């Protein structure tokens, strides 16, 4: 009798555990299977862009891990995780018609708490990607320069990002992860969304921005002067010019350009948000001037 009770109890416990497991399994089964590594791709901050040839392309790859305990590790010192990252055509019949390069160093944003416990608020830019609970959002930006896109034949290109880590590479993860595709349409006729949209102007501004990020300050300066000629009353013209001069360490001229931008802000009526970026850049060049 005693044994029978134990058997019944054991059976009940096993059945209950099986039922619980079944339910735990059943619910995720309804949802999509989540891969270990997830990539998301944007081009010029969108999923689909229509541009004039000569407009730079910035592909932003976001990477996260779906399992962070234990952390997934990719790459390591001297063998950075992003060397395994590439762009490829999502259309099997086409090759991507451009070369790209890293734009700045890939970064990882820490998970931030409140003011009481901000945690580690430093931006991580190490070679090893550690996908863990506290830091699970890595970003790499891959740029295609204006002169490069100017050579691309007009057409529609579907591109995706691929992370392919061979077994034997540093870290504890190997395999292949593929992002969503993005679409780039290059052509002379670009759809305007508002009457103010000017694809030529947009190409010019984005090119300056690109050269600044690529630290090609001479190119940025050349185009910034062109922008200033076209839009002499715009704050942005002087900030971009200031940034180019700042990069060239022509500090006095940079400060003048920034001051001009601030003057326009002050005289056109206060803008709602502060020009924090401008303030910090002005501070940067002033400090250098003082140090001389």
């Amino acid at each position, binding site marked *: 009798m005693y044994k029978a009770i134990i058997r019944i109890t054991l059976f009940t416990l096993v059945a209950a555990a099986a039922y619980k497991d079944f339910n735990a399994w059943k619910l995720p089964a309804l949802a999509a299977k989540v891969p270990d590594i997830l990539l998301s791709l944007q081009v010029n901050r969108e999923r689909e862009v229509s541009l004039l040839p000569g407009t730079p392309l910035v592909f932003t790859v976001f990477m*996260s891990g779906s399992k962070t305990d234990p952390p997934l590790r990719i790459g390591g010192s001297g063998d950075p995780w992003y060397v395994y990252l590439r762009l490829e055509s999502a259309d099997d019949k086409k090759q991507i018609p451009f070369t790209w390069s890293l734009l700045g160093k890939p970064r990882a944003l820490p998970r*931030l708490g409140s003011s009481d416990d901000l945690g580690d608020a430093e931006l991580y830019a190490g070679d090893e990607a550690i996908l863990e609970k506290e830091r699970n959002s890595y970003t790499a930006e891959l740029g295609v320069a204006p002169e490069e896109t100017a050579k691309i034949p007009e057409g529609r290109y579907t591109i995706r990002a691929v992370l392919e880590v061979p077994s034997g590479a540093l870290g504890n993860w190997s395999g292949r992860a593929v992002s969503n595709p993005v679409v780039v349409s290059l052509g002379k006729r670009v759809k305007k969304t508002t009457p103010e949209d000017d694809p030529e102007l947009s190409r010019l501004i984005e090119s300056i921005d690109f050269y600044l990020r690529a630290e090609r300050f001479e190119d940025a300066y050349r185009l910034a002067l062109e922008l200033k000629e076209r839009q002499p009353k715009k*704050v942005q013209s002087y*900030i971009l010019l200031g940034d180019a001069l700042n990069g060239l360490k022509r500090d006095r001229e940079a400060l003048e350009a920034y001051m001009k931008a601030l003057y326009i802000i*002050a005289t056109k009526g206060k*803008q709602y948000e502060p*020009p*924090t970026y401008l*303030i910090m850049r002005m501070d940067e060049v002033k400090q250098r001037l003082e140090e001389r």
Partner: protein
Amino acid sequence: MCGLLAVVFALSAYAQQSSRPSRIVWVGTEEFREVSINPGRINPASGDANEYYKSIRIKFRYVEERDLEGNGGFTSRHVEWTARESHIVHGFISRVCRGNGSLELGPGDSITDEHYNQMQMTCQVEKHGAIWGYFSGHQVIDPPDVVEWDKLRDDCSYSEEQPGYRYSVWVSPEIDAVMEVKTGRDSEYRQFVPEPGKQITYTVRSNVPARFRFKLEEVSRFPGFATNVQIKPYFFQIYGLDHLEGKYEVKEWGEPLKVDPDLILDPRLYEDRTEWEQPTYETVTTAKEAGSASVTITAMDFAVYGRLKAEVKGKCGGWEPVRVLVGGQEKDFVTIPMDENDNLIADRMEEPENGVTEWGYGNDTGRDDDRYPEGDGTPGDGLTAFEEYRGFMTQGVNFAGGCDDRGYDLHMRTDPTRKDLFIHSPDPELAQLAFLLENSTKQAGDAKGIGVHLICEPHSVGRSLNYTLRLWGPKEWRGKTLFGGEQHLLNLIDGQLPDGTMGETRGTTGLGPPKDVWGDVKIDKNKIFSMGDRPYFSAPLELARTVVHELGHAVGIDHHGDNNVYLALLITDKPCPEGISDPLEILGDGVSVTSPTLSAGEEACVIFNVARRHAQNSGNQECPMKYTYWNAYESPSSPLQPMGDIKVTDSQRRHATLKGYRGEIHKYRRDLDTPGLGPFCDKTAGTGINGYPGEANHAGDSCRVCAGQIRVKDWDSSPHTPPACPGDSGD
């Protein structure tokens, strides 16, 4: 009476009638209808009348029980009648008799005098002359007969019809069919909370083999399957309902939405034609007689309402209602889900800690009275309790590509006591930081901050969140309010800002609630990251603060004050303050003041980004709305005094005008001014650099209190106006 005796004689052949059951319930109707019009003179003595009308309808139910030898008889005889009979002899007399009632004649065949007395009609006679003797006596209802067994068609029924007479009788199956539904705390019925694809089964049991018909009635037809989603092909895949794709709730391009019922009899469960007949989404009938039958109902929405009824049909007779016992109480139907107070919300979900949510959805379905955080005192988040109960599809995973697969979506029933804000961000870094708004909107006195939920692009139309009911209704149903007004979500995006700012929220007032935000909440990530890590600047921290700051605007919070100085001239008889001002030449070659004329010994110094008392940099150090990274601040003891416009010209005779001030400024201590990521301030009191004594105090108390401005609800409230503060007093 003689009719009843015929039955007795008929029983002589009882032994030969093998199919005759031992217990028979006879149910039938007998009707008499007569109209006779005889114009002209008649002889009253003959008993004729000029006008004669008769309409008698008698319903009967007799129960007969006999043993195998045929011994026995009626054990119960029940009759029910309505009758009217009139005789009119023009100029002499009219008699109108009426009667209705019901009577149990009891067992046996006889009818007592007392029974006849009770079955008499009541007559009224009107005489118009000296006449007597006509139409005397009583009009009595005569209980109908039953026919011999072998006259029954298929051993079930008999009917005959002649002019003025109709008779029908059938053998009732005397079925007792019950659908019993348990309502105990752990019962399947009480536990059932609707979700697409989720099923619940009900069973009917009968005392004799019979066929059953199940009907869903008064079923809700809420468009979509949750408050913020319409039905798209992925719906069928995710919830295992692939076989219904293209058939259920189809929206053809350019056509109105065809909204199907939220509770259905899934055709896949009823496709076996040997078991089921003529299934539709709302009705199904068993094909064979059986002692019981079960029906499975499938929910197609996260909020459903419907009534299940069942009918039973024996070999003889028509469809009769099945008794429904819900928790031991007899009802006409069972509601799905269990909803005793009829408020369209499953009873289980009305209580907190119900196993699905920590909170409950009791009380009024249409209320929108979320309390936390208190904000500007406007209760609610623009979503009714019903909409919050029905829930929202949200971005289920907070990482890269979280919106790339609808299979990652997560359904969420939101807290009706907590204000909820829905944010769509295609940028995973910004999306991750949006959650910080929860912490910042939670004050010490608040149980909860704003509930932030990430959603994906398919979870809204434009920026309209609760669009399913808004676009396709119903707004009210069964006397309950479902939809109160349109509530908007926020788009949080990365974008290039041209004027040196790092974040921007634009709108009718520059502020929320969400409906008043124009377009997107924009953050210029590139600008922030391009600064790199430098002394007193952390890009992640600044990005986080900018996100919370802009989202703060989007829920109605203005800056701590308004009158900071961006670029101006300080007129002073002292040297220009070192490091925080510049000589006029910085504005260009040969720049000088032309108006007004400066006093001897005075000079004009260019000052920029000066934090003023009680303005944008003032107040609580921890508050994300406080400005940081400034250049200078005005002296608390010798604040800036505006002196109007100052005109300047350069060597090329180009003119410019700037605001002029007198007073003192000090260097802004950026090293002491970390970006705030704490709760939005609930007091004006300055803390940190704004709480220092004497000249070290940077900007003092704030003009506005942030926590008291928060508003999430888009509708049904007064316009949102932040408290006024001193503006630019440069002139």
